[in-house]
């Protein structure tokens, strides 16, 4: 009966370790993916978008000039009669709108640049605590579980049958006697 308790404790320690490892893996994967999205957005905003919209402004500016040239050509061709320019003026207006849109978007890209960097920093700040848990606290917790496990294991080898309550105490003592820098010691009031 008492041996069962000890076996349960062994299993509980192992299960806790596995649960923490799987939690850390899932969280690390999710954070890495989000970090990557934020970095990609930075690259897109700082490198891809400015050159894209500058290129579009040039291209759409050329379209405006072509539309204007077409109107002039039609006026000359129809002279001295007045030319019908409804379609050409509509085309020119469309080209001008597209050029203005590109100019507005380039301005947006420029204004978003510094703001995005600030927001990306704030995002990193919001995940910093969780990253600390992943990279510092959880490894320390795993080490702590491992020590408890080893203490129980060592005790199990030497303990007489029916000494399971003491085995539980061994694990507790290991947690209490944490080395300097261990979570348990650091957080003691």
């Amino acid at each position, binding site marked *: 009966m008492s041996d069962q308790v000890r076996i349960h404790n062994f299993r509980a320690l192992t*299960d806790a370790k596995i649960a923490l490892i799987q939690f850390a893996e899932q*969280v690390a994967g999710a954070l890495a993916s989000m970090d990557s999205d934020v970095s990609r957005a930075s690259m897109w*905003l700082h490198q891809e978008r400015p050159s894209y919209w500058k290129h579009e402004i040039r291209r759409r500016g050329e379209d405006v000039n072509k539309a204007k040239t077409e109107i002039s050509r039609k006026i000359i061709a129809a002279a001295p009669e007045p030319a019908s320019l409804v379609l050409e003026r509509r085309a020119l207006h469309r080209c001008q709108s597209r050029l203005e849109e590109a100019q507005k978007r380039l301005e947006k*890209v420029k204004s978003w640049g510094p703001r995005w960097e600030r927001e990306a920093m704030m995002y990193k700040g919001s995940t910093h605590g969780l990253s600390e848990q992943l990279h510092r606290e959880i490894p320390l917790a795993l080490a702590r579980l491992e020590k408890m496990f080893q203490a129980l294991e060592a005790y199990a080898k030497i303990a007489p049958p029916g000494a399971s309550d003491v085995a*539980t105490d061994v694990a507790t003592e290991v947690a209490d006697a944490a080395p300097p820098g261990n979570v348990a010691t650091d957080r003691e009031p």
Partner: protein
Amino acid sequence: MSAQVTKANLIDALKQLRVRWAVIKQTWQDDAAMRFEREIIDPLEPAIMHACKGIEHVGELMQTVRRECGDDSSS
């Protein structure tokens, strides 16, 4: 992966850990277990929730940036 998916994954990880810890606690009930819960398990929840808020915010901004700075033919 979208911000929504990331957030859902973080919350799912926390839920799974909580469920597993509840099972573990049925067989590990000494002071060390209580201390472990207080010092290791419990602080994970506020850390996850704080991260989720940041992820949600940056995810919304990402959509706005894409809408405002993306190709106008697709918007």
